[in-house]
């Protein structure tokens, strides 16, 4: 029996490649590192923040660690960008994160379903509108964090290129965007990947790369149908 057949028999499909899983793992660890070294700097007057900074060896070492994680983030984003570009260029894979008109109608339908105005939520393809929203928020956020972070790291250089006011503006952006990323991840991502009734207590597919056929039918019916060469199930 071939590998794919084994998985098929066990009722599993491969959702993420090993490279994607590694990418998620690196980003996850990096995000925790950035938050742990970044938030105490934002809330530096609070007792807990000062205790954390002291525990991590003082503000100067916290800064170096934060910069290290920042550089890792830059590498991860560039790496991801190259991968996304290659997917776009290869006709076969395509760019499944691209936002299209359907995502908006899906969102409306799903919200109507939550409100009891529709019988079914929208049927989703490889990524649903929530996942796309989170992906793009994260991508835009990463670009803001990287640009503002580099500005704060090299203020004299940036002041040679443009007005000096960019630097305090970058500080405000970095601080607020960082807080927002932290809140969105803790509220939205933790809900969708852990507390969501369908996956509770833990959606492991990004770590194992596998997803059950049952969940695919439920959460990504359009992708499943395409993979199996069927017509997508009827939707509104």
């Amino acid at each position, binding site marked *: 029996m071939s590998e794919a057949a084994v998985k098929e028999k066990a009722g599993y499909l491969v959702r993420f490649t090993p490279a994607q899983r590694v990418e998620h793992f690196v980003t996850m660890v990096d995000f925790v590192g950035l938050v742990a070294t970044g938030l105490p*700097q934002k809330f*530096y*007057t609070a007792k807990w923040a*000062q205790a954390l*900074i002291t525990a991590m060896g*003082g*503000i*100067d*070492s916290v800064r170096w660690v934060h910069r290290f994680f920042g550089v890792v983030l830059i590498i991860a984003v560039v790496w991801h960008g190259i991968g996304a570009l290659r997917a776009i260029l290869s006709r076969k894979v395509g760019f499944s994160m691209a936002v299209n008109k359907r995502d908006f109608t899906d969102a409306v339908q799903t*919200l109507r*379903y*939550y*409100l*009891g105005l529709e019988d079914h939520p929208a049927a989703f393809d490889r990524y649903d509108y929530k996942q796309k929203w989170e992906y793009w928020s994260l991508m835009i956020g990463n670009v803001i964090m990287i640009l503002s972070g580099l500005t704060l790291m090299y*203020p*004299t*250089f940036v*002041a*040679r290129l*443009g*007005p*000096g*006011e*960019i*630097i*305090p*503006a970058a*500080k*405000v*952006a970095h601080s*607020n*965007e960082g*807080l*927002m990323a932290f*809140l*969105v991840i803790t*509220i*939205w991502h933790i*809900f969708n990947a852990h507390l*969501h*009734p369908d996956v509770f207590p833990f959606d492991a597919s990004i770590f194992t790369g596998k997803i059950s056929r049952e969940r695919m039918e439920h959460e990504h019916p359009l992708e499943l149908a395409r993979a199996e060469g069927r017509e997508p199930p009827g939707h509104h």
Partner: protein
Amino acid sequence: MAKRLFLALAVALVATVARAEVPAEQDSCLGCHGSDPSMSMDLPSGEKVSLHVDLAIFGKSVHGDMLRCTDCHTDKADYPHESKPFKTRRDVTVAYYEQCKKCHFANYTKTLDGVHYQLAQKGNRQAALCVDCHGSHAIGRPGEPRTRVSVTCSNCHQKVFDVYSSSVHGKAVTQGNGDVPVCTDCHRAHDVADPRAGALSLRTAEICGRCHTDQKLMKRYNLSTNVVDSYLSDFHGMAASLQKGKKGKGDRLAAGCTDCHGVHDIQRPDDPRSSVMQANLVKTCGKCHEGATADFPKAWMSHYEPSLKKSPLVWSVQVFYYVLIPFILISLLIQIALHLWRVVVNR
């Protein structure tokens, strides 16, 4: 004070009774030391020590109605006096200075943490002792008048005093203004901190803030009291308060007030000599920020809160997030709540 006076009298009385043949009374001492202004002693160093005490001056001093000669000159109760092997005038001062701690123990203990004592311990005999600042027979109330304090320090620290005298604070002192800081306001009096260790410059927000956050005081000079808060909420202030004076290997401590405004040479920001004058800022920032160019100083908002008028870019970014963060979070929470509600209803 009354108690101490009583004690001094009691001690004197007992001493008188016990050794009636050696009068320790003020008058007895002044019989010799108070009459001849030229009375002096030659030291091996060639210096002369005056042995004359002007009763009028001592009487007006803080100790005039309180202490007897032998309270400090404890070894001079006998006559003829036991001869001491003093070689220099400094020997005399060093020998007598410990007498002060008998009464002034708290302040004496403080001096043990001071830079003068540390220097003295290392063998520097010029390091200031009690009497070098307070005087001996003519001791007045400390800090009266306030303007005298810096002049006292100038006896040794002349160069720094000259710089200070031409600063915005020093000039005011010479005009008799008591509002401005004198040496001891920043450096302290007894436990004078060693400024070279860097600990003092990191405490500047607190030290300068004592006056510069005092609304009543600042109003007299039309100065903002927001300078410390705006400093603390920005990068330098945050870093300085977290560094807490601890310097790791290769760390550079974040700028405190004095790093930009100067220390003894502080001038009004509109004075051409001021290091925070617009024209001098690039150089001032460049002290830490290598390669700072003309626009770099604008990275610092000059103690102003970002506003549409002062820093429109910073202000806009701030407003953008003040709106965006609550909007996003509330939207997400509403969607989660609706989702969970649907799950519950479906069951």
